[in-house]
């Protein structure tokens, strides 16, 4: 196995609430190889965004470690973390609220450069901004426009340029295309893929859109209520989903074609509460194959076939 750029080890993030602890991320471990993309999918509230933020330590993990280039960054102090952030960036979901409305395009892109004193000299900085705008496909004439003058696709390009400004190695993309129209979404996805090849970037791609995640990821991690229920290379996961939840998710994708339609598995019920969940399979209440054991014992990830991990009692028994 080649070197992993980022590794998370038993990462947990609990939020305290009036009723108890919300288990937003519960014991998640994974690693991403350099230059690859890890897709994270799940329904809203499953903890995928929190996971992304915890990995970057925008949220302090409750327990667990994150290793970047083999170094444990979870113990880093403010100063060292600040330096580290240069290599780990994030692209946010909503290009409408993640940009300062009072900053022009060039100011927004310049901001990180000034903060990290990368190009102290003004002229060089202007050159770098022009270069970045070129990279993400923003026309130079937009240099002095404000975000409200631009459409969602262009705003998202500014977000990408800002993330790229510091020459990062790793980028967390948190739903970067879900606010965009399909034709623009395709433009941004192609851009992200081109950048990855060009700059050898590593992505953690968080989304709820399964066709997008399949398209862009090398490996996919399916989350349910803070836990990873299945993890496999994209092709394998889509060809042979094992966990009942993954199967239901895949069958629910609306396919834009009249042929090879899937039969839909409708899940009953709603997501159970993530507040202090009992020691049982968290999906059991919605699962058609749940047995006694599922309500007694929490399942753990095991390797069902090479590279394909799943956490389900029924699958384990079947093997």
């Amino acid at each position: 196995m080649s070197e992993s750029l980022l590794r998370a080890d038993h990462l947990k993030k609990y939020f305290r609430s009036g009723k108890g602890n919300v288990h937003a991320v519960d014991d998640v471990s994974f690693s991403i190889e350099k230059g690859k993309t890890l897709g994270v999918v799940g329904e809203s509230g499953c903890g995928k965004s929190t996971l992304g933020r915890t990995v970057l330590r925008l949220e302090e993990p409750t327990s667990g470690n994150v290793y970047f280039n083999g170094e444990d960054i979870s113990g880093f102090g403010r100063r060292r973390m600040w330096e580290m952030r240069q290599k780990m960036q994030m692209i946010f979901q909503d290009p409408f609220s993640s940009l300062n409305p009072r900053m022009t395009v060039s100011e927004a892109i310049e901001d990180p450069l000034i903060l990290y004193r990368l190009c102290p000299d003004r002229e060089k900085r202007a050159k770098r901004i022009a270069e970045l705008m070129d990279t993400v496909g923003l026309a130079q004439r937009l240099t002095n426009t404000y975000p409200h003058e631009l459409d969602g696709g262009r705003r998202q390009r500014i977000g990408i340029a800002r993330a790229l400004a510091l020459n990062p190695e790793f980028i967390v993309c948190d739903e970067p295309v879900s606010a965009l129209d399909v034709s623009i979404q395709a433009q941004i996805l192609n851009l992200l893929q081109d950048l990855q090849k060009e700059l050898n970037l590593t992505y953690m791609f968080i989304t709820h859109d399964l066709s997008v995640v399949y398209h862009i990821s090398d490996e996919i991690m399916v989350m349910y209520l803070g836990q990873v229920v299945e993890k496999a290379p994209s092709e394998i996961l889509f060809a042979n989903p094992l966990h009942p939840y993954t199967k239901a998710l895949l069958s629910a994708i609306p396919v834009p074609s009249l042929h090879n339609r899937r039969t839909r598995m409708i899940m009953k019920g709603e997501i159970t509460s993530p507040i202090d969940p009992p020691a049982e399979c968290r999906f059991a209440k919605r699962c058609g194959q749940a047995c006694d054991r599922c309500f007694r014992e929490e399942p753990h990830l095991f390797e069902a076939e090479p590279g394909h991990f799943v956490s389900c009692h029924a699958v384990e028994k079947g093997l």
Partner: protein
Amino acid sequence: MTEKEKTPPALWIRDLSVEFRGRNSTVYALSGLNLKINKGETLGLVGETGAGKTTAGLSVLGLVASPPGVITGGSISVAGKEIIAPLTGDEAELVRKRWGEKKHRFDPGVKRCVSEEEMMEMRGRHVSMIFQDPMTSLNPVITVEKQISEVISKHTDVSGSEALRRAGDMLELVGIPRSRGKEYPHQFSGGMKQRVVIAMALALSPELLIADEPTTALDVTIQAQVLDMMKKLRDENRTSMLMITHDLGIVADICDRVSVIYAGRVVEHGTLSDVFDHTLHPYTKGLFASLPDLENRETRLKPIRGLMPDPSIRYTGCPFADRCDEASEVCRKEAPPVYHRTEDHMTVCHLYRDKADKKGMRET
């Protein structure tokens, strides 16, 4: 005459134009939109943000905010009943006399054929609409059963308790236990709120349901539940439906016919198999090519280049010309002609001008 032709279409929009007139500029939201839904059918209206999908839905219910919205031309009829009709020659003359050459900024080009009272009677009873965002279309301080019963008591003369009972029935119909009717919207999840909105829209079994992106705010699994439920209710009540969406997957799932809308006009219309398997218009082709392929991960996406055209510019040629790979000189200069591939399947594009209908626009 066949059975189908005798019953008037559930919704018929002809040549509808809607403008939003601001102080400095005018936005042309719809420019000559044609839609027709036969009784019991579901029509998908597909297009990108700003194409005019929602404006089309709102005009049917007479909910286009005016000012600044002005319906400048065209007609709408619901189940044979005219709602909006163009001005006759005499009426146009009167308007000209009243306002002179300086036409008032908000002076419409059409007349309303129903009074506001009649319109209110129609909304909810004959035509109802499901709005995109379930989080904001419910009143947070009224229990959900009360909100549903309001629709019922407003339009029928049943007693309050009877209306509440029927609201409970509706909740059960959409898969929410009757006992939860006493709860407030914030106690429901997104999917359940959307189901409450659907229950409200269907409370009086309207003949026509306009669903404006009803599942966009929901997760795929919940979306699947809601779509299945809508399909079931539609088939039981023989409701005609206008499904406004940007998701071609949903169209394939629930619709009988599709209209693809671009910059305020329909560029392609046909049955599902016409539009999905015999795609004609370059824009529709572009929409399909932009979607990730679930069969092959390696296929590179082919986005439509450029952006939606500025809606405050009136185009003489084809509004899609600047983004179209097959555009030629004539596309930028002349309005594209209508071409019917079959009786049902039509497109508006210069690519097919050799085969285009000679007699101009045929009714769609």
